[in-house]
């Protein structure tokens, strides 16, 4: 059976060249990067090469790159590490600002700190188009605010947040505070996990102090990620053990993973350079974007009662998120899977927690509209032929499920109205 993978925001296949570069570090050069003999030093050299590759891509220094197990750990370290460091010097409760539609690893970290009574938190809602207004963040800043954490690209709806704009306004506030001789510096963290493939991740340009990413979203291996930590920033480790990663992340380094991450980021970099050399029209990013627009237009045209969630313009080139009325997403996913099309949904029924997508709810969608959502995320190898096949299968499945559901939703509201 055909297999059409349209879930690249969930994970990506490891690029063959990336895999080849990783291979020697499993059984041959297997040394511990902390060991002093040559086998260990070979591993250490490979790690430092990858660190440089990442640092170059972020426009950062090597000393500012910390390898972690992935974006979840990076986000935990960024937020908890900053709060811990704060309490080493001060006692009054600090304030953190984030958004309501962050990935759970940011949202739940902030909520937990709030529950433990360690912080106050403000959650900023995005506008209906899935984009946060930088002014809303500015207005939420208080005298005890120590951190703003806002994602670069939303993982469900692909909307792009004004990170550079937020970075600028935070810089301004910090400069003003300096003049007033206020010691509390406001830090800015972004989770760039979904952005690395397609957007500028230069930390200077973005004005970020902390930035997280994960290798498996960019054709690298799973289980490895990065936290960029600006030099001189006040942060404390949250995992105790050895002195790896400048004392900020204890644990034997995942050498093959790190090599893979460096190699994957190198591939992203060379695609960008190709884009600059050959012009936009010939670049992979723009090819994906053209295909994505084709997919959006085809779905909205061919399938009645469907709509796009989130801005079409301020959107990652690879993301499509649509809602089909009178259809439940998990059953749609199952039906697509039987035809070899792999996608994802914001429906509660597909989540382990049985709660509907907090991202779509934040956009103001009704629960049944979140249940009927479908996310399709393209990759660098997605073809037009695959899109055509996928739309054919989606259309057929939506029709079938609508037949099964008949008028129950309408009937339900009629009864409710009658009883009210």
């Amino acid at each position, binding site marked *: 059976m055909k297999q059409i993978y349209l879930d690249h925001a969930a994970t990506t296949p490891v690029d063959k060249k990336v895999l080849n570069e990783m291979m020697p570090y499993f059984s041959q050069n297997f040394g511990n990067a902390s060991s002093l003999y040559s086998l260990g030093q070979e591993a250490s050299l490979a790690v430092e090469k990858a660190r440089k590759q990442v640092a170059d891509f972020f426009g950062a220094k090597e000393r500012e790159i910390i390898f972690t197990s992935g974006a979840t750990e990076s986000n935990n370290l960024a937020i908890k590490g900053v709060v811990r460091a704060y309490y080493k010097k001060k006692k009054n409760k600090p304030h953190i600002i984030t958004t309501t539609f962050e990935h759970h690893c940011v949202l739940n970290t902030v909520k937990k700190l709030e529950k433990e009574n360690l912080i106050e938190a403000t959650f900023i809602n995005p506008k209906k188009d899935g984009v946060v207004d930088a002014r809303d963040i500015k207005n939420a800043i208080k005298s005890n605010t120590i951190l703003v954490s806002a994602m670069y690209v939303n993982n469900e709806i692909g909307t792009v947040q004004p990170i550079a704009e937020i970075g600028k306004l935070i810089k301004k506030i910090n400069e003003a505070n300096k003049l007033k001789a206020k010691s509390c510096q406001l830090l800015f963290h972004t989770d760039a996990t979904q952005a690395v493939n397609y957007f500028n991740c230069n930390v200077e340009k973005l004005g970020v102090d902390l930035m997280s990413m994960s290798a498996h979203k960019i054709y690298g291996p799973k289980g490895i990620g990065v936290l960029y930590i600006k030099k001189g920033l006040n942060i404390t480790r949250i995992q105790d053990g050895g002195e790896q990663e400048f004392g900020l992340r204890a644990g034997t380094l995942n050498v093959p993973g790190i090599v893979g991450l460096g190699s994957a980021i190198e591939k992203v970099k060379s695609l960008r350079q190709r884009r600059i050399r050959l012009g936009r029209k010939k670049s992979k990013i723009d090819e994906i974007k053209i295909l994505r627009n084709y997919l959006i237009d085809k779905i909205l045209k061919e399938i009645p009662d469907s709509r796009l969630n989130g801005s079409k313009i301020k959107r990652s080139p690879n993301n499509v998120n649509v809602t089909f009325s009178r259809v*439940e997403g998990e059953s749609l996913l*199952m039906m697509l899977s039987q035809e070899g099309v792999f996608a994802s949904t914001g429906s509660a029924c597909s989540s382990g927690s049985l709660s509907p997508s907090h991202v779509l709810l934040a956009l103001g969608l009704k*629960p*049944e509209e979140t249940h009927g959502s479908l996310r399709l995320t393209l990759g660098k190898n997605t073809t037009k032929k695959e899109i055509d096949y996928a739309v054919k299968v989606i259309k057929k499945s939506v029709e079938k499920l609508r037949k*099964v559901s008949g008028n*129950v939703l309408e*009937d339900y509201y009629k009864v409710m109205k009658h009883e009210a």
Partner: protein
Amino acid sequence: MYSKKVLEHFTRPHNQGVIKNPSGVGMVGNPTCGDIMKIYIKVKKDSKKREVISDIRFETLGCASAIATSSMITDLAKNKTLKEALKITRNDVAEALEGLPPIKMHCSNLAADGLREAIRDYREKNSPCGIRTTEK
């Protein structure tokens, strides 16, 4: 994660659709949780004057297990007397489907409730004094 039987009933549901002029209708679930199920029954008296479900159909908006349990309840209840049909439990439905994922046992396993609602609706409409027994 789903059994073969669930996938069979999900892919090719039995007795899907509506009954015109049904003897009873039951609607359970809600849009917030994601599953809404409507069960239609036609009740006839057999030669021994017992009330028998002669036809049963369903409409369901919901996940794969919600659709599969709807399909299964129609198989389990068809041609049963009302007394027998009322004995069908959520567990019976899950067992007939060779099991449901634990997380789905509660939320999507609504079919037995839907059938009971349909029978209640039928009995209300046909109560001897013609009065609805659970008037709101």
